[in-house]
């Protein structure tokens, strides 16, 4: 591990060579919009909101999966990036059926927040009105695929943290969908432990708890950091026990 110095938006910053540009930026109070990234989960570089410019390359790089290099000059907030981020949010809005007014996470939704943050005022592409299902067979939770942005946070948290691997992606392109257990109803899933982690990490109202009223559900993702840190530091091991 080495400490490198680089420039982000004209500011000299330092970071470790095994950290992402996103992590380094956030340590220095520089906010980069993200959706598929979540602290504590692996990164997939899928939503493309965190794209940044790096001097000397015409290409754009996802901050969540890009490692720093000594002397790198990074811009996170150019006119081009702002425009592209807005289009990404427009794409996500057009791809689902997001009726915010009747959604239980209304005002607590990451997609909504990103729309405000990117200054989205109207969607210039036509809405696609897909026909998607809602599955309410689970005793505690509901998945409404109309509100899914395919960030795969649920897939990763269930596989990487809970270890159940209930969720997967089926299909290709615009017909991709999140499915449970080889496309069985969630309620019939033999792998789901009903831990609720996927519901908490879902950025939208796609995964929700039963019995929540409109605009009432607030998602908390902090637990993930605690679990992951605790595991890394083996905090759950009782050092005083003399079992061995």
């Amino acid at each position: 591990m080495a400490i490198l110095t680089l420039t982000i938006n004209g500011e000299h910053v330092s970071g470790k060579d095994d950290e992402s540009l996103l992590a380094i930026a956030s340590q220095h109070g520089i906010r980069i919009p993200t959706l598929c990234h979540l602290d504590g989960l692996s990164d997939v570089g899928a939503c493309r909101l965190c794209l940044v410019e790096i001097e000397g390359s015409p290409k754009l790089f996802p901050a969540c999966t890009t490692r720093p290099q000594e002397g790198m000059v990074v811009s996170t907030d150019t006119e081009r990036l702002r425009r592209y981020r807005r289009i990404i949010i427009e794409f996500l809005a057009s791809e689902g059926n997001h009726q915010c007014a009747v959604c239980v996470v209304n005002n607590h939704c990451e997609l909504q927040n990103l729309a405000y943050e990117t200054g989205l005022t109207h969607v210039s592409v036509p809405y696609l009105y897909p026909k998607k299902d809602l599955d309410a067979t689970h005793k505690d939770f509901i998945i409404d695929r109309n509100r899914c942005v395919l960030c795969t946070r649920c897939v990763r948290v269930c596989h990487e943290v809970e270890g159940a691997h209930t969720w997967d992606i089926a299909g290709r392109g615009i017909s991709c969908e999140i499915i449970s257990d080889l496309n069985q109803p969630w309620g019939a899933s033999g792998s789901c432990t009903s831990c609720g982690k996927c519901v908490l990490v879902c950025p939208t109202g796609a995964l929700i708890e039963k019995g929540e009223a409109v605009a009432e559900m607030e998602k908390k993702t902090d637990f993930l950091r605690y679990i992951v840190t605790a595991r890394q530091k083996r905090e759950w091991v009782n050092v005083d026990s003399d079992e061995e």
Partner: protein
Amino acid sequence: MDRSVLEGDPHRVLEGMAIAGYASGASQGFIYVRAEYPLAIERLRLAIKQAERVGLLGNRIFDSQFNFRIDIRIGAGAFVCGEETALIRSIEGKRGRPRPRPPYPSEKGLWGAPTLINNVETFANIAPIIRKGSAWFAAIGTPKSAGTKVFALAGKIRNTGLIEVPMGIPLRKIIFDIGGGTPEGTTFKAAQTGGPSGGCIPGDSLDLPVDYESLATVGSIMGSGGLIVMDSTSNMVDVAKYFMDFCVDESCGKCVPCRVGTVHIHGLLEKISGGRGTTDDLALLEELCQMVKETSLCGLGQSAPNPVLSTLRFFRHEYTELLSAPEGFVPAGAANEKSTTG
């Protein structure tokens, strides 16, 4: 094109792979071939058996310390599984979805190990180059694009089929000397190279040498060697729409720009080709193409807008004519069909 090599001379590919394995210190090779090529798979299997029998593959090749095994992995034919990181995941038995690079496969590839990944044509060239020397190979083609290239000549042309030509050959020679020109009564309009990831070469560039650098100057690519000829009856907006339709189907759906952007680009092309497009639609089309190209995760999405951008560059009037389409307007290329259907 690659299939013809696998079917016609599989040993060339096996030999190239074994040499590459020796050079890079690998002891295991995989050939990833789609299930839709059963003859190629059958002949590869036979060739691997033959090579193992005479000690050209397997343990202690030529009584040396070098061991090299080749196994076949059969893909289900998703276009995106040709993208190297998706291909690697598919060989691992996972869903063929690309991941961001770096790390490149040479650093972290199959099962996390450093991996060399090359195209069939590349491997097929290795043994002859070693046998005859690099000077021999470099003497064919141009200084920067050495050797030959196999093209699949198709479309509005008299002689279709596979051709092997030296790099740098003028397009005119391919179209007229080898292909015999476009059908009776039509004129050459453009040639599309690189399939859905490529672009077109317009009629006034017939003297363009066909090599990597020259194709790049007109915004196209060599790709796997598809060469589709369009004549005066072809409508370029329809050509662009056809390729975009392919990309909509083949997008893996992982990243937002390609998953959703290709659908919207296709929708705009549909609207414009149906005569319902406005100048705003055309501006939006260009913006979305640029955005999808610059923001997509893998080569599929990054190159998906190329046929649109390329036809917009050389045949923009075919788009603009459709925008202000007056009553009874006949789009370019439709004249012949119109007159036969009355």
